[in-house]
């Protein structure tokens, strides 16, 4: 089977036995430089993505993190050239994929690449699968269009793909419709479609947000494993920091249309340099640390992109903002491979020292313990919890 993944897995097996492919060396498969995307609306122009640049290498998983409306999905759709043509304008920027400039291709050339070399997995598997076509037909479609397979070849490949993504009894599944599958199964089918033509790049936009925790773990393990084995570059868009920490090699943090921090996962989580990333990490309750009295929060809410604040976009919510933040901060390399768009990135750790020291201490402690249990009493801070008098004597009534 010349198009089969048998060849690809064969190649991957030799890699899988050794160390995982070295990161960030060699040519990136995707490079985005200074991308600007605007939406023209009746209320004015929304600058949804401003000056975004990043690169993705084969076999690595890059995460894009940010709140809703920060431009993370829009930037991915711009790479796929799937933005709504009536309102969206790619003002400037270069998207280089495998040596070709995607923004300069005509529609037909782009159609050749989309679904074959680059594929995308969307958040909602129910709405992104066609409800009136069988699973089999939907998996075979890209194979018939892009790979010029015969029906028999495509069917064999579809069965192979369903097996690959862990669906049992694939042959009978081909005749089923999306509504006959569970949410997790549907997302596996989406991944199978995404992988059908052996893509070099897979863009997953919130691939597990609609799924339960245990199913989420199954799907992400599968994606990570496939990325390693088949050397596929994966861009994962999510707001779940736990997923990023567990699966991503490199992290891009976006805030209000701009990139504010980029680095290897250990760098961004271990030593966040931008006040927004620091705030975000402090704001999530964590299972591996003691309960805190109060969650640290970032005051205010993200700006309206119709009328964003001048200079640093995070300035109105930032605890460390100074006069000079009125100018747009440059995106600079603070330590090797670790960039941030904050003029105080160098001193941020010292400025934010108090709570940070506590965090590091507990983290060391949990690491020393091998992190076998999720919390331990000695880590638990005294917790303010006022119960009315006599509540503990309340009778257990519902037997």
């Amino acid at each position, binding site marked *: 089977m010349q198009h089969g993944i048998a060849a690809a897995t064969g190649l991957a097996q030799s890699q899988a036995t050794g160390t995982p492919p070295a990161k960030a060396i060699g040519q990136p498969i995707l490079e985005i430089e200074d991308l600007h995307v605007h939406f023209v609306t009746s209320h004015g122009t929304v600058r949804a993505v401003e000056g975004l640049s990043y690169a993705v290498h084969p076999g690595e998983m890059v995460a894009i993190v940010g709140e809703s409306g920060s431009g993370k999905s829009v930037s991915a759709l711009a790479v796929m050239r799937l933005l709504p043509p009536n309102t969206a304008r790619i003002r400037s920027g270069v998207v280089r994929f495998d040596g070709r400039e995607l923004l300069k291709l005509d529609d037909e050339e782009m159609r050749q690449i989309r679904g074959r070399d680059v594929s995308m997995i969307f958040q909602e598997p129910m709405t992104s699968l066609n409800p009136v076509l069988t699973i089999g037909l939907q998996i075979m479609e890209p194979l018939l269009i892009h790979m010029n397979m015969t029906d028999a070849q495509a069917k064999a490949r579809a069965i192979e793909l369903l097996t690959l993504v862990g669906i049992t009894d694939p042959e009978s599944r081909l005749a089923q419709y999306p509504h006959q599958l569970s949410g997790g199964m549907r997302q596996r089918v989406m991944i199978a479609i995404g992988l059908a033509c052996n893509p070099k790049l897979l863009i997953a936009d919130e691939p597990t947000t609609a799924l*339960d925790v245990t199913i989420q773990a199954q799907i992400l393990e599968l994606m990570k494993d496939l990325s390693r084995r088949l050397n596929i570059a994966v861009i994962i868009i999510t707001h779940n920091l736990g997923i990023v*920490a567990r699966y991503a090699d490199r992290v891009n943090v976006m805030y209000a249309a701009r990139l504010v921090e980029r680095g290897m996962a250990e760098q961004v989580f271990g030593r966040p340099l931008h006040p927004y990333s620091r705030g975000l990490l402090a704001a*999530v309750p964590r299972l591996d640390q003691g309960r805190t009295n109060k969650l640290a929060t970032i005051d205010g809410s993200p700006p309206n992109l119709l009328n964003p604040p001048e200079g640093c976009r995070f300035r109105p919510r930032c605890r460390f903002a100074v006069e000079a933040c009125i100018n747009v901060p440059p995106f600079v390399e603070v330590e090797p491979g670790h960039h941030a768009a904050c003029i105080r990135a160098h001193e941020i750790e010292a400025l934010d020292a108090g709570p940070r020291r506590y965090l590091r201490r507990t983290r060391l402690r949990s690491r020393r313990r091998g992190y076998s249990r999720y919390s331990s009493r000695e880590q638990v801070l005294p917790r303010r919890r006022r119960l009315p008098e006599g509540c503990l004597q309340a009778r257990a009534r519902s037997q």
Partner: protein
Amino acid sequence: MRAVNDVSLTVRPGETLGLVGESGCGKSTLGRLVLRLEDPTAGEIIFEEVDLAPLSRKQMTDVRKKMQVIFQDPYSSLNPRMTVGQIIGEPIGVHGIMPKANINARVAELLQLVGLFPYMALRYPHELSGGQRQRVGIARALAVEPRVIVCDEAVSALDVSIQGQVINLLEDLQQKLGLTYLFIAHDLAVVRHISTRVAVMYLGRIVELASADDLFADPKHPYTRALLAAAPVPDPVVERTRPRTIITGELPSPLNPPAGCVFHPRCPLATEECKQAVPATRELAPGHWAACIHA
């Protein structure tokens, strides 16, 4: 279909009882049963010494003054054609709590209580952000001065930085007003943070119940352990050393639940015995209950 099966649970005054589980496990149904938005087939719902199950609609109206709900989706749970003031004022009028003339002042007070501004009473929901809308939902629930609030995935749809603000607000309000929460959510870290005690549900049954600290420090039921193992922690260094024990399979259909322990088809500890009978809920440590024969 048995959405909620043989569940017994007590919520103590002033506490937050967390209810976790995957979608379809019956946690929202349980919340709706407590509010009598759904009628139980059998069983009692005792609130302040009164069984709610046989009450008529009219009798329930009085009870609802003391029990309110905050829904997950701040976009669809507010009427887009009503102003924020009308939304918050409506329950006050419906229950005839105070003369109409005083309602506006009360709405302004409630808006301030949830961290919004009185002038926002004239706005429509579409003019507010997601976090602000959820605060309006909270203000509406507080309008009738309830004793119990069912929070059904109340923070799940919010962005991380806003989620923290709303959680803190819920905790502050609990302290100020002595509220009791039934907090339904699927995010384990959030549930641990806010809850006094936590109940874990699987396929319509409660499989484990303990204080929040005990449950997360020493989970007894294999399903609780699986849930905790599957929840990623935002720290790559910790993540790399964590064992990857991921349970296989999916939630069975509640139309046709497995015999015996409902978790046995996915359970790593399952034995022949587990298929025979539904395991009894046992108290394994003071206040720590689990329904597993191997726990």
